[in-house]
């Protein structure tokens, strides 16, 4: 058995989970909902094993490093963290239905990695040979994943709000009635960002510590650094927006979606469109 087989199983399972979530939205059947999140957790376990296996495989061929060193590995890890954060939030707040808006992100990541990215295990270039790589990448991606979950919740918020506004009745509407109330969605959005913001902060700090250790400058306004700061500013604005009258709800949801768009640009766009020190995603 190889890690790449298990990654294929993971992708399929997330696909099944997403379809079940959609069926859950349509049918309001609790059993379907349970099956949907069980599928997501099963996929998560398979993926965990696959990541561990890939780690071992890298030692077997003599390169020996954590599977976080190129775009393929980072996308796989990102999708893993998304399900992890979703699981935490579902477990803690018991709103299964947000899976319908979160699992697709994880599926998208896995499908892209499996179909579009080269999956070879390569040796680490000198710049990445540091334990800081682990701390930095893990915290950043957990943060990104929490923002992905917040973005899914914010999309639900906007859909729900629009529908409530249209009918003037919170009870109407088949599928959307399954959603938690906009008050709850607003709160969940905040809670997801409350998980993501400290993680991103630690991610930026470990990145700065690493840069200082490796290059003697903790901050050099490299495009990736700057974009991570942009993301951080946006979520800081979000946190303050929430305690200001007139900014809760709709505007906060939009800010959260903009924040996630910036996060994705920070993660992928910088490497695709801009140049800098983080050759990482190339």
């Amino acid at each position, binding site marked *: 058995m190889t890690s790449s087989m298990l990654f294929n199983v993971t992708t399929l399972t997330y696909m099944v989970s997403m379809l079940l979530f959609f069926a859950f939205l349509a049918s309001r059947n609790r059993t379907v909902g349970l099956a949907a999140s069980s599928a997501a957790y099963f996929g998560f376990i398979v993926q965990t094993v696959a990541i561990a296996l890939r780690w071992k495989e890298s030692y077997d061929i003599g390169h020996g490093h954590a599977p976080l060193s190129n775009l393929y590995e980072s996308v796989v890890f990102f999708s893993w963290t998304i399900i992890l954060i979703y699981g935490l939030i579902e477990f803690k707040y018991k709103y299964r239905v947000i899976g319908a808006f979160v699992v697709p992100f994880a599926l998208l990541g896995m499908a892209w990695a499996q179909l579009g990215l080269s999956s070879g295990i*390569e*040796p680490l*270039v*000198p*710049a990445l*040979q*540091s334990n*800081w790589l682990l701390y930095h990448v893990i915290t950043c991606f957990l943060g990104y994943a929490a923002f992905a979950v917040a973005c899914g919740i914010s999309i639900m918020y906007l859909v729900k709000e629009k529908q409530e506004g249209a009918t003037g009745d919170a009870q109407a509407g088949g599928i959307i009635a399954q959603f938690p109330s906009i008050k709850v969605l607003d709160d969940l959005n905040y809670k997801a960002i*409350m998980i993501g*913001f*400290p993680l991103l*902060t*630690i991610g930026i*700090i470990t990145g*700065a*510590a690493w840069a*200082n*250790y*490796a*290059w*003697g*400058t*903790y*901050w050099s*306004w490299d*495009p990736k650094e*700057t*974009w991570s*700061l*942009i993301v951080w*500013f*946006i979520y*800081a*604005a979000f946190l*303050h*927006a929430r*305690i*200001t009258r007139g*900014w809760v709800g709709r505007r906060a949801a939009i800010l959260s979606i903009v924040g996630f768009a*910036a996060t994705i640009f920070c993660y992928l766009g*910088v490497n695709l469109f*801009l140049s800098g020190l983080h050759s990482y995603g190339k």
Partner: protein
Amino acid sequence: MTTSKRGFMESAWDFFCSLKLSISLLIGLAATSIIGTVIPQSPPREYLESISAAKIKLYSALGFFDMYHSWWFILLLYLLTINLVACSVKRLPRIWKFISEPTLIFDDGLEKTLSLTHQFKMEGDAATLKEKMAAFLKGEFAEPVVTEVDGEYHLFAQKAPYSRLGVYVVHLSIIVIFIGALIGSFFGYKAYVQIAEGTSTSLVYKQGEERPFDLGFAVRCEKFSVSFYDTGSPKEFKSILTVLENGQPVSGYENIPIVVNSPLTYKGITFYQSSYGPAGDGAVYYFTAQNSKGGAPVQVAARKEERIPLPGGAFMRVLESTQDVRPFMPMFSGPAVRIEYLPASGEPQLVVLLRDYPDFDRQRGGELIFTYAGADEKFYTGLQVAKDPGVWVVWAGCSLMVLGIFIAFFLSHKRLWFRIANGRVTVGGTASKNQPAFQLFFDGLTEKLKKM
């Protein structure tokens, strides 16, 4: 006159205390920061040649080529700082009062503001009930403060009141980080130096300065080496450095290997591996040349581009060399050279020689067979030199920030009030964070009270 002046000061103060300003500044910083990631900072000449003169003029006037140090970006950062300080000055005393002088009396007004309240009938006189409830609160929650007003008893207990200060710790940390950055920019520097193997220097070149700067001690590069993976991509760049004071090696700083991600620090100055290259054209390459019909091989030593006579009227010249041939010839590895061979008669030939494959040149079938014995090539190591006395302040600020964020997000200021009057106990409570979890706790508490 005075009133309008006062009015101005007051509105300026309100302006700087407003959270709307904070949100605008944060979004403004996020939006403007994008510019510097799209327009190259300190752009190379090729970029400048690729855009129009009008654009260059506009961009330089707006400071876009060094955007993060432009006056308007710095101004935004200062505004943020002022906003932060003003907001804190305005709110902190109130918060402090809130913590140090909590509301002890559980009156109707307070009761109306609380979403969690509960009322019980209880047997016993007020004084006994008070003792009982105080013991209960102490056991289940925290030691209460008891106040008696007109024969009614008010009990107040709280947990983690200082968690309210978490956000101020975060805000303070931002200012600490700014201070650290300022210290670094005033008292620190970044420089660069190239040291050839076997030589030492005390002079480094600071960024943007022509004249060298004397460190006050010297660094010698004992050796530089580079190694490669099977794939031909670099595995490690390593310099062996020794620190010299007055020409003498400093004990504990002799033959220190430094690689990317593992620098050397001496007297607060850190040396980072950053680049390397051949040190001048001082390298000597060693060859043997043997006639294919037999006879003793001839030893040849050559510098690059030097025309070396060979037996029989031929000549050779070293054109280029590499430490590792894999990127050019993936089937082979190890050092290689390319030489030009000028036979006594006939066309000049380009010949590749591989140190680790001594028989390689036989295939050529030439009159002379070469082997390459290697070179004593000298490298220079390129070191980044940095001194930043502010860096510890920055780390202190970062730690403070993480601590503050955790306090602000994950600690909750919980408060409970009990009122004992007319054989009835009224309970109320509130929490600053995670209200649902507090509600569970509150419900559990009232269940226990019911059973008493």
